[in-house]
């Protein structure tokens, strides 16, 4: 079984500045790391490999530095890492990204199962996994919290929905996106880290993956960001409660809350 895990390099800090003109994140100064949900996707794939055999390939789209997240995946013992890299991919929104990744998977690492983290911490869209399934015409299960089993070319999973969980089975090939609660990702193993010392990802560009140039990068991205801004902090009124001791102060607060009908 070939399992492909889509991973993404994201800013390491939550305090990332915005480019006021381009309305995009200024990524270079923040430091970079692997998207947290994607670690759970990798762990899911490695557990499936342990239980059912097969090969795990990690794939990412990004600049050359994005090879760092592939190294991390190699440390966790994935078999292969593919970097989809080129100027032509720059400025991609989720539609273009999912098209690019699906084209690369189709061409370079055909998959029986594609696993994505359910959401990336930088864009917060949760659209790339579903997008890939659409482009490849595969079944999709999002928000997976447990992989029950793989049997007769079907995968049985539990997904969280509002008000409960659902057990779902879908035919392979399929795309699943996983929630953080699905597992605890392993640390990079010693042998994995030894491999990292010599690891070079397989790098592919638009030509290598046979993609339609009008569907990638900025050209293939219908999303346009009109404005990005940091919301202004509202000044709230406040009042300091005075009193002889904690009991008296608490009584005053309680009285106020009752009088304002905030509690009844």
């Amino acid at each position: 079984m070939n399992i492909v895990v889509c991973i993404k390099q994201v800013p390491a800090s939550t305090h990332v500045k915005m480019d006021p003109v381009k309305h995009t994140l200024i990524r270079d100064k923040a430091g970079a790391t692997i998207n947290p949900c994607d670690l759970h996707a990798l762990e899911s794939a490695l557990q499936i490999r342990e239980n059912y055999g097969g090969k795990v390939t990690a794939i990412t789209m990004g600049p050359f530095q994005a090879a760092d997240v592939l190294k991390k995946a190699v440390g966790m013992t994935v078999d292969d890492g593919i970097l989809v890299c080129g100027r032509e991919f720059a400025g991609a929104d989720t539609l273009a990204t999912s098209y690019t990744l699906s084209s690369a998977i189709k061409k370079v690492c055909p998959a029986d199962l594609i696993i994505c983290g359910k959401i990336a911490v930088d864009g917060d869209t949760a659209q790339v996994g579903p997008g890939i399934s659409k482009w490849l015409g595969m079944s999709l299960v999002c928000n997976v919290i447990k992989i029950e089993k793989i049997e007769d070319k079907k995968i049985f999973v539990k997904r969280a929905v509002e008000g409960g969980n659902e057990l779902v089975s879908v035919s392979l090939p399929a795309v699943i996106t996983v929630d953080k609660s699905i597992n605890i990702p392993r640390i990079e193993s010693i042998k994995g880290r030894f491999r990292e010392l010599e690891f070079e990802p397989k790098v592919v560009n638009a030509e290598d993956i046979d993609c339609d140039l009008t569907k990638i990068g900025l050209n293939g991205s219908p999303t346009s960001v009109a404005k990005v801004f940091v919301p202004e902090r509202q000044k709230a009124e406040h009042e300091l409660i005075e009193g002889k001791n904690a009991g008296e102060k608490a009584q005053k607060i309680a009285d106020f809350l009752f009088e304002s009908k905030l509690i009844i």
Partner: protein
Amino acid sequence: MEYFLSDKEKIVAETAREFAEKYIRPVRAEYDETGEFPWEILKKMGQADLCGIYIPEEYGGLGLGVFGLTLAVEEMSKVCGGITLAMAATALGTFPLLLYGNKEQKEKYLPKIASGNMICAFGLTEANAGSDAGSIATRADKDGDYYILNGTKTWITNGGVADLYTVIAVTDKSKGARGTTAFLVEKGTEGFSFGRKESKMGIRASSTTELVFENCRVHKSQILSREGMGFIVAMNTLCNSRPGVAAQALGIAAGALDEALKFSLERKQFGSPISSFQAIQHMLADMAMEVEAARAILYQTARTIDSKKQKNFSKESAMAKAFCSDVAMRTTINAVQIFGGSGYMKDYPAEKMMRDAKITQIYEGTNQICRNEIALQLIKDAKGKK
């Protein structure tokens, strides 16, 4: 201090450090309290390749020798000397096989040990034979192709949880120490059972039990080396394994120093952090000096063993073990003192480190026995020079 670690050695230490922070620190107090064996953690150690560091690559290990093992045990023992022992005592149980096993025996067991799927133990000590290893009473009587084992081993680390035991038993009483033989005995062999699990002062996450042999039949193919070599197998095992105890002791000491230093920066008395008082500063300085000296003697001993340039290293090995464990005891006592009242409470890690440190002065040869060996070698060397 710069120890000129290779890239691979650095990776071993980093991995062990990350592993201990992620999987051991959050649960160490709980395991200490309940005395449960850390099955889940050990499984994860195997997954991270921490179980086969000293095992040759041809058997699925990393081939990084005693020094590689030392680095990993030190890093993990900084966080918990008890949980780490599940792996470190397996190394003790594996050395007889590594040193004296034949190809079939090695191929059968080493890959499983390296992957963390097999736990080992070493059974030498008995009620009346510990330091005096020549007095063991467990018998192995020959019966065709089998040996029949009878007797009881006491205080065996990993007892009950281990899958494979190296057991030293008497095959020819008339020959004394030369009449002992080392056997590989698998858990589940008929006539082999375990006594009660001991309740210990420290290293409480580790399992310590008796091994009970009642007409336990073991095939001759399970002998390590050959009949009569038991004492030599045991002594050379200890020479190779004592750096592991030293590493555990060093880790506990270094961990206690870290905790004491951190606490001294936070705890305020008379309006200042206690780290600003010279009485505390001098204690911290002594602890740091001793920890660094312990590390130096241990690393150099481990490198000496791995270099294979020195045939007999019983003196160096005993020095590293005795020195590091004495440092661990002094350092952890001082750490509790720096923590003051908090140090005596189980809410803080210092008292556990002090309890864990004590065993390192006792097992795998008490520090008194280690000193005997050091002196014996000194005298031998001096006489040889005459």
